[in-house]
């Protein structure tokens, strides 16, 4: 017997999850489409559904000990209009879907859905976001790249819920999020590029790059980034071809209905090149 439940508190949700498996529904903007059935019929769920979107205790954005902390059921449209939200995250949210979707969509949903094309994911990778998972046994914190392990795959346990997302507060002198899609609104990314640098007194203090939808998970290679920290801006720009070559083997996109491998790879590398030479 399918039993869908609307819990009234996080504790109730955690107790239920500890008891038996549920599909967790936040805003539903991905799940309701993925499980869509015929017109005039409810979507098809084989699992019991736990409706957590209205848990007000998980709707917040605050600053705490060097982090911006975002509660998991906070709709992304709220983040778009909040001064605490990091610039790059706002850039990604601003071109995500449409206002109607953004009133329901959550960052936690992007994580739970674990699509390589999820718009906020490259930002979470570039900003070293920490995902806070809670269960009845307690809390564990994992960096985003350890939470998502493949397309639609993550390590969140059956009895856990994404409680919040912690983003370390950091400074960038230049940062960009570029999404390539079929149209501006309501489009799933063909690919995306995120770049962030902090250059002070002509010295590169921080250099971060991420690509979306060009590999099984968001692509970020810290070992490549670290090679270019400490250079002057001119030296960094002078090494643009070398940097492009460093990323080349890791960019392994697929052909699908939205785009093809060649286009995705060419555009991804061009966006990287353009980001560096226009610093």
């Amino acid at each position, binding site marked *: 017997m399918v039993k*869908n439940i609307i819990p009234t508190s996080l504790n109730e949700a955690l107790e239920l999850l500890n008891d038996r498996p549920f599909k967790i529904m936040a805003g*539903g903007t991905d799940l309701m489409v993925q499980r869509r059935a015929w017109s005039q019929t409810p979507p098809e769920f084989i699992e019991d559904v736990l*409706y957590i979107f209205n848990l007000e205790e998980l709707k917040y954005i605050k600053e705490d000990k060097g982090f911006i902390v975002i509660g998991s059921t906070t709709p992304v449209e709220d983040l778009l209009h909040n001064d605490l939200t990091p610039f790059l995250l706002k850039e990604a949210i601003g071109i995500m879907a449409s206002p*109607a979707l953004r009133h329901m969509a959550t960052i936690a949903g992007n994580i739970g859905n674990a699509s390589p094309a999820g718009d906020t994911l490259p930002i979470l990778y570039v900003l070293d976001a920490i995902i806070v998972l809670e269960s009845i046994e307690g809390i564990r914190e994992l960096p985003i790249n350890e939470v998502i392990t493949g397309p639609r795959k993550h390590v969140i346990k059956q009895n856990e819920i994404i409680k919040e997302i912690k983003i370390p507060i950091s400074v960038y002198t230049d940062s960009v999020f570029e999404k390539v899609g079929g149209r501006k609104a309501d489009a799933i990314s063909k690919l995306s590029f995120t770049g962030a640098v902090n250059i002070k007194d002509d010295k590169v203090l921080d250099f971060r790059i991420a690509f979306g939808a060009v590999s099984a998970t968001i692509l970020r290679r810290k070992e490549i980034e670290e090679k270019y920290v400490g250079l002057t801006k001119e030296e960094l720009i002078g090494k643009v071809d070398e940097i492009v070559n460093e990323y080349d083997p890791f960019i392994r996109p697929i052909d699908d209905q939205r785009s093809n491998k060649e286009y995705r790879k060419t555009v991804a590398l061009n966006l990287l090149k353009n980001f560096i030479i226009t610093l």
Partner: protein
Amino acid sequence: MAKIRFKLNNKMIEIDENPNLRLLDVLRDKFGFTGVKEGCGEGECGACAILINNDVVNSCIVPLGNVNGKEIMTIEGFSLSEKFDVISSSFAEEGAVQCGICTPGMIIASESLLNKNPKPTDEEIRIGLSGNLCRCTGYNAIVKAVTKASKKGDGLW
């Protein structure tokens, strides 16, 4: 089944239903609010747009379980307001309605936009209505209509 309480067009409702039901179907089939249209059924066209707590959402991808404790307004409820009169007359005067199927959603999205931003620029209007598809007008007349509503309804929002 679960007990779900919400306000629908200013009236308190309590129903015992499957929370997986699409809000779109509940509004049309159980309450007869057929101004809420089904277009794409996957959240991309905005024909099923309604207001939840004054924000535009697409009711085809909202499960009933997500509206517990919320205030829902369909085009039928909104049509009783002065703001509706301003928006709908502006749409009529600018020729922003042709076949009409997108119009309830366009008006709902316009209301949601004007609520947050009473004096939107053309660009802000295009962003505000970016989730609503229209196959007839080419959008320019709709953008003009929202600008007109914003001027005519000065002080309402």
